[in-house]
């Protein structure tokens, strides 16, 4: 099959981050600074992406502000014609840097929110003082009028604060609030038993979001990612594998989704060796789960297969041990019991300490 050109690219500039969120979507095997692509290579990747048809660039990490060349990189992306979205915890964004980013044409900021109070947020983020710094940055963003989305990452420990989260987002002048319940990849998988919300919390969150959505029409838009363990059907991960977006890791590895490296039998190409276009159209990893021909039953004969493409490959691997299985979140999956059991186990696990993400102390060998 011929793939359409990609629309969006997630550029993980670095895995470094002052925070240590226990649900961080970065892999548990974090890359250290010495593995990161240099400024020129990133700029070239941005130009290649724009030429291929990418319209939206999500500048992420780790914490992208940990890169001293963030302004230069944003400028290169804007000059390539990309819509630039900075995904940040806010730590490291000084007023001076915000000025510079605005000047080179940064379009939008997505600011993450760990919690609504310093106590909660700094505990979750594993970084004391982080909340206060974030609030200062949020005010600086608001004063400049930079379009802002607040990304509230929700789980068992902060879902009960949803009403307050919504109020805060309005006060901070966010145009959009993403209520993103944790997805269980990377570090979140490690902490799953402590992070999975209860069924009551999930129902309550749906009610609160839909009420707030009505009440705040014209003031703030919502995007809600419910915890998929409680859904009947899976999410269409990335809108279908290799169909709309791609992800470049700090060392230049190109992935169909941010968690794809968890699939051990796939080989992922690197922008240091091949062009982005070759990787998108021709590489084995991008073609592995494109379209619907590869889908197993029950998906093959299901009328939702063009809607969710059988769900998330990484979730199928994590829970079923087979990346080409039907996402077990689906109630039609022969392995749906795995999700039911995981929920039960999580609800019965006593409270334990969270495992915070951290970089390896010894740098990984370059292979």
């Amino acid at each position, binding site marked *: 099959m011929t793939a359409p050109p990609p629309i969006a690219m997630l550029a993980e500039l670095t895995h470094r981050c002052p925070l240590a969120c226990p649900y961080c979507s970065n892999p548990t095997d974090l890359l250290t600074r010495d593995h990161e692509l240099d400024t020129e290579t990133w700029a070239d990747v941005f130009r290649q992406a724009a030429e291929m*048809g990418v319209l*939206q660039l*999500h500048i992420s990490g780790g914490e992208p502000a940990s890169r001293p060349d963030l302004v230069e990189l944003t400028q290169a992306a804007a000059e390539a014609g990309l*819509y630039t979205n900075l995904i940040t915890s806010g730590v490291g964004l000084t007023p001076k840097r915000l000025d510079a980013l605005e000047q080179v044409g940064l*379009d939008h900021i997505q600011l993450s929110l760990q919690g609504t109070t310093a106590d909660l947020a700094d505990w979750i983020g594993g970084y004391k003082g982080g909340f206060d710094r974030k609030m200062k940055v949020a005010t600086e963003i608001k004063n400049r009028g*930079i*379009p802002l*989305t607040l990304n509230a990452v929700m789980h068992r420990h902060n879902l009960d604060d949803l009403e307050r989260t919504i109020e805060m987002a309005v006060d901070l002048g966010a*145009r959009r609030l993403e209520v993103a319940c944790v997805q269980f990849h990377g570090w979140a998988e490690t902490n799953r038993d402590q992070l999975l919300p209860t069924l009551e919390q999930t129902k309550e969150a749906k009610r609160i979001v839909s009420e707030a959505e009505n009440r705040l029409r014209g003031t703030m*838009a919502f995007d809600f990612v419910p915890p998929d363990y409680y859904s009947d059907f899976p999410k269409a991960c990335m809108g279908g594998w290799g169909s709309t977006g791609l992800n470049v890791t700090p060392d230049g590895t190109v992935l169909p989704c941010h968690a794809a490296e968890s699939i051990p039998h796939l080989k992922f190409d690197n922008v240091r060796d091949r062009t982005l276009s070759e990787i998108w159209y021709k590489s084995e990893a991008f073609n592995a789960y494109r379209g619907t021909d590869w889908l197993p039953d029950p998906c093959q004969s299901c009328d939702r297969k063009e809607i969710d493409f059988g769900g998330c490959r990484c979730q199928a691997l994590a829970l079923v041990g087979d990346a080409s299985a039907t996402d077990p979140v689906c109630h039609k999956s022969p392995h749906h019991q795995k999700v039911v059991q995981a929920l039960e186990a999580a609800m019965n696990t006593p409270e334990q300490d969270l495992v915070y993400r951290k970089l390896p102390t010894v740098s990984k060998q370059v292979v």
Partner: protein
Amino acid sequence: MTLKLLAGDRPFLPRGVRIIDDRVRGGKVLLAPEKAVALDAIGEAILSRVDGETRFDALIADLAATYDAPAEQITGDVQTFLVGLRARMFLAVHA
């Protein structure tokens, strides 16, 4: 709240929302925070008249004249399109 535009409202694209030529796929695209919307001919015709100066009633009159269609008939379609954008915060109005 209803987000329907009043006759005197002057719609505009807020900061962070813009229309570009899609060099690869052709046509025009509305770019907004974390969203790209390919515009069809009608969407393009409407948004090309959204400039923060033109009133909603004048915009409708202009479209009616250009496409030789009765204003009452197109008002509904244009409202639906613009209200959808307003709900996503991709469009704002000067009252």
